[in-house]
């Protein structure tokens, strides 16, 4: 029995699931409470079950110590733990709980689900991508592919014929910002030219900024610092109030009657849209700089862009729209709900892959429309190795990039290096991720060593080949040309080489099953 193809947008603040319907079109599947997106929040009720969704997000004000939110920002951090009621959860465990809930809700409508495509921010590194895959597996999902969020959104727009030519995808979500320049030759042929992003920049940061402004207003009026030393409950309430204000200001020029209190002190604050835009101006400049970067790397200018696609809830902020309109001289597209475009595109990608693998059960016409889709993405980071080279007139260890960022995938690159010393019997095989040649500022994501035969002169060739496949898996080979000895490193097992101090048992899927609320 084959299962429907699904795509999941695992967001920082909200997540969504879409599936391919019998007509071969993607559609959002609401959760069990009828919401089209599910809050990415987990509430561990005392002596009760675990709740996921809006209920959990709402409980954060009252039970801040028992709610986990914005877990996407912790993905890939091997040291992050949430300890509650004698249990210990990693970021992967929490994400798995969210995915499991979304999957379970969708199964009410679709029946058993198995194959999925999960999206991640374009700027997620290998460790974070692997963590996302691990979370999906823990939730009982077989991941067909991890794709970038802006790419998924571009796919959704292209498939529905709402965008073509060279488009810019501006994805400003709750926790991350990504921008991609995408060439849509026709509704079936999509190629990403360049991607940039900042996974520490999102709507949540704007909420915190507004919350700080509330604290200033409170202090000015009451002489009491609202947030300094405040307990978590107060902090959550203020941030929640800031988020409500942010949403209100998207449609109204001012919000008044914002109730803020600390102990016996109360104020009713108000904030205008102008003030809010002033507060967030620096963040918007950051997004603008990333847009310029992506354009530069794709070899395009603002006048080459035929359409600007807005994705993510934060694009509802009027000043974002205004920035893009001024920059590109055209109103941005948001014909697809910005909260849903990514999940819809992910479902399309899942449909394509299931067709390729012969797992689909769609009628032939629907199947045909998916089979002809072609999607090409790019590497999101540069990958290299550490080698001694000349640096400002002296020999020093440098990062040598082998696959530059924004290289179309699949790809394979080879670079040659030479042994340094006569009689050298070993070389370090390090795989780095990052830009620039200063080794202090790149991440070593995998390493090993290759033994060499003894008694050889210096200058023996070592050929290093990095191959990056369409599933965004990388394999690296270090070959000693003369002897034929080689070292193979595959990034399926990528992990941070430092900080691997896991000293607590992870929660198994079986345990997860018992805890999730029905």
């Amino acid at each position, binding site marked *: 029995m084959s299962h429907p193809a699904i795509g999941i947008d695992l967001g920082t603040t909200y997540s969504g699931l879409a599936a391919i319907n019998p007509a071969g079109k993607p559609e959002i599947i609401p959760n069990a409470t009828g919401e089209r997106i599910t809050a990415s929040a987990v509430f561990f009720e005392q002596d009760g079950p675990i709740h996921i969704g809006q209920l959990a997000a709402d409980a954060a004000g009252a039970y801040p110590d028992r709610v986990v939110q914005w877990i996407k920002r912790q993905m890939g951090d091997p040291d992050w733990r949430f300890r509650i009621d004698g249990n210990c959860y990693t970021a992967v465990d929490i994400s798995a709980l969210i995915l499991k809930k979304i999957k379970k809700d969708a199964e009410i409508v679709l029946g058993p689900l198995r194959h999925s495509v999960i999206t991640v921010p374009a*700027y997620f*590194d290998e460790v974070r991508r692997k963590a996302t895959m691990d979370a999906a597996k823990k939730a009982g999902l077989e991941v067909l592919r991890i794709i970038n969020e802006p790419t998924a959104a571009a796919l959704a727009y292209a498939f529905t014929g709402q965008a073509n030519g060279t488009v810019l995808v501006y994805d400003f979500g709750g926790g991350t910002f990504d921008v991609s320049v995408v060439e849509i030759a026709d509704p079936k042929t999509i190629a990403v030219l360049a991607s940039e992003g*900042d*996974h*520490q920049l999102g709507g949540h940061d704007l909420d915190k900024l507004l919350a700080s402004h509330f604290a200033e207003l409170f202090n000015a009026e009451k002489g009491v610092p609202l947030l300094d030393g405040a307990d978590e409950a107060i902090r959550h309430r203020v941030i929640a109030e800031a988020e409500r204000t942010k949403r209100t200001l998207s449609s109204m020029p001012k919000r008044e009657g914002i109730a803020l209190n600390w102990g016996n002190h109360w104020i009713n604050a108000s904030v205008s849209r102008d003030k809010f835009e002033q507060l967030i*101006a*620096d*963040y918007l*400049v*950051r997004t603008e*700089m*990333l847009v*310029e*970067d992506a354009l530069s790397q794709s070899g395009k200018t603002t006048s080459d862009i035929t359409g600007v696609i807005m994705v993510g809830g934060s694009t509802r902020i009027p000043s974002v729209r205004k920035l893009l309109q001024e920059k590109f001289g055209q109103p941005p597209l948001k014909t697809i709900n910005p909260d849903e475009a990514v999940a819809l595109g992910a479902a399309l990608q899942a449909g394509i892959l299931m067709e390729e693998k012969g797992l689909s059960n769609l009628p032939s016409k629907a199947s045909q429309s998916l089979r002809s889709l072609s999607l090409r993405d790019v590497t999101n*980071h540069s990958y290299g190795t550490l080698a001694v080279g000349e*640096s*400002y*007139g*002296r020999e020093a260890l440098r990062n040598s990039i082998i696959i530059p960022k924004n290289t179309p995938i699949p790809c394979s690159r080879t670079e040659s290096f030479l042994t340094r*010393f*006569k009689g050298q019997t070993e070389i370090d095989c390090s795989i780095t991720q*990052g*830009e*620039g040649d*200063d080794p*202090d*500022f790149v*991440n070593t994501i995998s390493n090993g060593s290759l033994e060499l035969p003894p008694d050889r*002169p*210096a*200058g023996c060739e070592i050929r290093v080949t990095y191959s990056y496949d369409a599933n965004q898996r990388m394999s690296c080979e270090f070959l000693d040309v003369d002897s034929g000895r080689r070292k193979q490193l595959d990034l399926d097992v990528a992990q*941070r*080489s*430092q*900080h691997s101090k896991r000293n607590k048992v992870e929660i198994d899927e079986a345990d997860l099953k018992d805890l999730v609320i029905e």
Partner: protein
Amino acid sequence: MEWLFIAAILLGPAIIRWIINSFQENSVEQQIRSHVREATEKGLTVRCKRDTIETDDGTSYPIVRVHVSGAILAPRDNQPGAFRVRLSDITDAADEPSPVFCSISDCSDEDGIYEVDEKLEIPYRMSAVDDMGLTGIPLFALVPPHKGRRTLQVIVAVTAEGDLEQVFAFGKTTFAHDFDCVGYLEMRDHTMEQERRVAMLALAMSAADGHVDRRETTVIRRFFSKTLAGRTDEDERKNRVSEIMRETLQAIKSGDKNPDSMIRSLCSEILDTDDPRVAQTAYDLCVQVVAADDTVEEEEHDALRLVASELGLPEGFVREVHDRNLRLAMFDDAEEESLVGVPAGLSHEEKLEFLNSEYRKWRTRVTHSDANVAAEASLRLERITKLRRELTDGHKQV
């Protein structure tokens, strides 16, 4: 008797011819023998010719090409052999040659002494070479006993392949060359002088803000402890550096030495050695000293600029060292542009371009596995975008 006479008349010319031929052949053989004796006694003629080699980037390097001419006497035809080229320094005493080291491992033995062997098969028992090019001696990679004008002896021998004792031919010559590099007999003293300069410069830097912090001197001590570890004379050199530091601190305290003028004169000395490694190491240490107390005073910032300028350090290198060691939180009341490292004198467009490139650089670091680096990167991005916005808004208003 008649038949004898007739025989003599008939055979005489033939006999005479035989006698003459025999004489001539013996003469030729004698000549050959004579030539061989002469050739082997003469040995190989070794000739050195100055030349340069150019790398792909157009840099020229001086070499000396070695050519040989002469006879080689081998025990048999097709004898496996090798040309062996050796160098020695005979400047001080021709009968007491000193080794010459070479930094290119393919041109040196296990101890680093210059040595080049070229295998060959000697085709005949007696073979001759005529101005055959053997090898190029890399003058730029040689280290003689002393700096300055040196006379080097080039020895070329043809021996059996596996046996250096079986010498089939031998020759030598000399050439002179002016060496800029420090000789190996001077290296120790030279390195100790460098240590003195670096230690004093770092101390001058620590005094730049008018106060020498213990954390700053600890950084200097740790640096030398690490650098000198494992040397045979480790203790002696550590003691020497400690003594220099004590004396310098005393002199600064008493006012005998002024940090600013110390910085200038020491930078000048370091620059004279023409060794970028020393200049860069010295600057790196100075930055670490300044960062030691988690505060970068304006005087310290000015002193760093002075050192970078005096040492002629590349801007990219300076920025790298700053990125590694200095955090924004260390700077108090610095102007935003200076804080972010915007070079002085840039046009508006150049400033924006600089900020964009700094933004690109720091943005990649927010995902660094070291939380401190990631945090610093986030802070930098905030400042950069703030400054960019100010520049853009200010420009619009104008």
